[in-house]
């Protein structure tokens, strides 16, 4: 089937070429980082995780979001998602691949990455995260590919693949729960030390993942003959809306607990993220703008989606989904991870700014993800279109 990715129009090849160019530049950046060390990034003794780990955290959510198609289709036999479930599974493949690349990019000694397998350490959440991510990648590659192949040959998929699909549903929850456990099991980091972190992660994942999927479906509709169908898009938008409402409700709960309890440790990061913190005449507020912007566009877009009038055109839906995706990317892909480090456990305010090299590597990983996604979508759509023709 992979040969289907080798034929395409000029637009397809141009897009792949652009992605390859970004990957090339990012690759050169990585060579620099590999030779010098992580000191080439903006990370420091106080903010010891930066863009790489925050992107990883956000993308685990995008990967988990695919389950919002798989679950209704396979568990509730919701036929409308039949055409696009494969898009959800392949998006999960691309997203998990990016997660693994971001982790590798973040290691101080990448050559020793296999130590996690050579010295399995069940008390470390990172060990379990490695397991759930890799298994989820496997479940989605195999599940998606086998079912697509069966579809191409017009035979029913083998029975065993059904088992994989059913396992993949709770597994999607597990990848984001375990990723939340990376953070919320740490003493002394008040911003992360909250039982609602995993639910909050899942709510934002079930909004961000499907939002990206809707955007992809709309792009495919515009540039290819593949149409996901109005009903499927509408249903997805409903899922996104409710998940986004839950997400902002959870954010509100955090704000309530922090500010009503009046415990300094619980308020410090919230202060830093939303209002800025002044210390010795210096104002630490580099995330205030993005965080306020994130809350504003996220909530505005979510409220807008509640009105049927705002859903009556693909164009509006596309923009609103884009706004929700961007909002959640800022909230989780920047604020959540960086906020955990500021202030430091010793109450120092050290801000983090990524360097150009770091941005280049980050862009390259995103481009690689887009490349994987494009190729997989090309195969899936070619199969579906030839069958339908």
């Amino acid at each position: 089937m992979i040969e289907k990715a080798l034929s395409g129009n000029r637009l397809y090849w141009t897009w792949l070429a652009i992605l390859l160019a970004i990957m090339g530049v990012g690759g050169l950046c990585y060579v620099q980082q590999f030779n010098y060390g992580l000191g080439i990034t903006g990370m420091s003794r106080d903010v010891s995780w930066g863009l790489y780990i925050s992107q990883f955290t956000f993308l685990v959510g995008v990967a988990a979001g695919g389950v919002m198609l798989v679950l209704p289709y396979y568990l509730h036999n919701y036929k409308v998602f039949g055409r696009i479930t494969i898009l959800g599974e392949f998006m999960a493949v691309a997203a998990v691949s990016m997660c693994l690349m971001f982790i590798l990019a973040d290691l101080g000694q990448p050559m020793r990455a296999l130590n996690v397998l050579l010295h399995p350490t069940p008390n470390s959440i990172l060990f379990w995260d490695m397991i759930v991510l890799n298994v989820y990648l496997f479940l989605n590659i195999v599940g998606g590919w086998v079912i697509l192949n069966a579809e191409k040959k017009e035979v029913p998929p083998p029975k065993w693949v059904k088992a994989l699909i059913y396992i993949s549903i709770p597994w999607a929850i597990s990848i984001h729960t375990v990723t939340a456990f990376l953070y919320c099991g740490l003493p002394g980091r008040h911003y992360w030390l909250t039982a609602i972190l995993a639910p909050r992660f899942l709510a934002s994942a079930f909004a961000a993942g499907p939002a990206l999927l809707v955007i992809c479906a709309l792009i495919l509709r515009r540039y290819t003959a593949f149409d996901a169908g109005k009903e499927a898009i509408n249903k997805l938008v409903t899922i996104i809306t409710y998940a986004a409402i839950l997400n902002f409700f959870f954010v509100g709960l955090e704000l309530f607990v922090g500010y009503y309890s009046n415990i300094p440790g619980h308020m410090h990061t919230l202060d830093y993220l939303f209002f800025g913190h002044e210390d010795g005449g210096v104002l630490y507020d580099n995330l205030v703008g993005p965080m306020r912007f994130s809350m504003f566009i996220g909530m505005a877009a979510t409220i807008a989606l509640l009105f049927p009038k705002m859903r009556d055109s693909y164009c509006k839906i596309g923009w609103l989904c884009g706004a929700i995706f961007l909002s959640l990317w800022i909230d989780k892909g920047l604020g959540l991870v960086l906020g955990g480090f500021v202030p430091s456990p010793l109450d120092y305010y050290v801000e983090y700014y990524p360097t150009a090299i770091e941005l280049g590597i980050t862009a390259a990983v995103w481009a690689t993800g887009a490349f994987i996604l494009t190729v997989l979508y090309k195969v899936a759509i070619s199969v579906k279109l030839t069958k339908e023709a």
Partner: protein
Amino acid sequence: MDNSRRKFLKLAGVSAIAGIAAPAAFNSLLKGEAFASGGGSGHGEDKAPTGKRYGFVVDVQKFAADKDLAQRCINACHTTHNVPDFGKDNKKDEIKWIWTETFGHAFPDHSQYKKNTQLVDLPIMTFCNHCDNPPCVRACPTKATFKNADGMVLMDFHRCIGCRFCMAACPYGARSFNWRNPAVKNEDGSYKYIRRPNLDFPTRMRGVVEKCNMCAERLAEGKQPACVDACRPTDGIIFGDLNDPNSEVSKVLREKFTIQRKPALGTKPSIFYII
């Protein structure tokens, strides 16, 4: 109908019993002891583990009396362990095993309200607490950070993959990361960032985490930790077995009022401060 209700009640009953019993069972699994000793109450109070548990008592007043004492400790430790110095204005790459903090930063969750002026300026020596219940050991995915039988929290530099999960986990900011190569050499073969290299102790490579190792290598030779020696003739830092009632630390702890950093977190630090 009737049948399903009975089934539900049965299930509910079993779940309730499981719910009540599980935490206790889980606790005994985790700790190997189901019941805490009756001795203490409040946060950070628990039965002391048996066997050796090395710890420190830092007498802050001694450091206040002798302004150079802190720097002598830092120099002794950093020279002994080839800790690189990237310069004062390079905070980003900074590596430190032992350093001074103000009271407010070393004890941020203590009340800072109307503290006496002398306290605010006290130099508080801070280093790895070698916690009895170390979050960094729990977080490490490769066992590069581990606790040995004597209660020392140690690092295997050769196993560390540089994920820095331990840095996120440590509530005391005691860990440093080698963001760059600390052992770069000048043309004449001397180290660029290590002024007086100690040939008996290794240098590190970039990409690994490091921290105070309680001078494990000196203890093995029957010596005291370098910072403790540097404090002599004062007793600025006292070192010994917290579980040995006859050790000097135990004696001081019995006699003096001491505090620990962030005891509410349950990490059970092995450093006690006489303020």
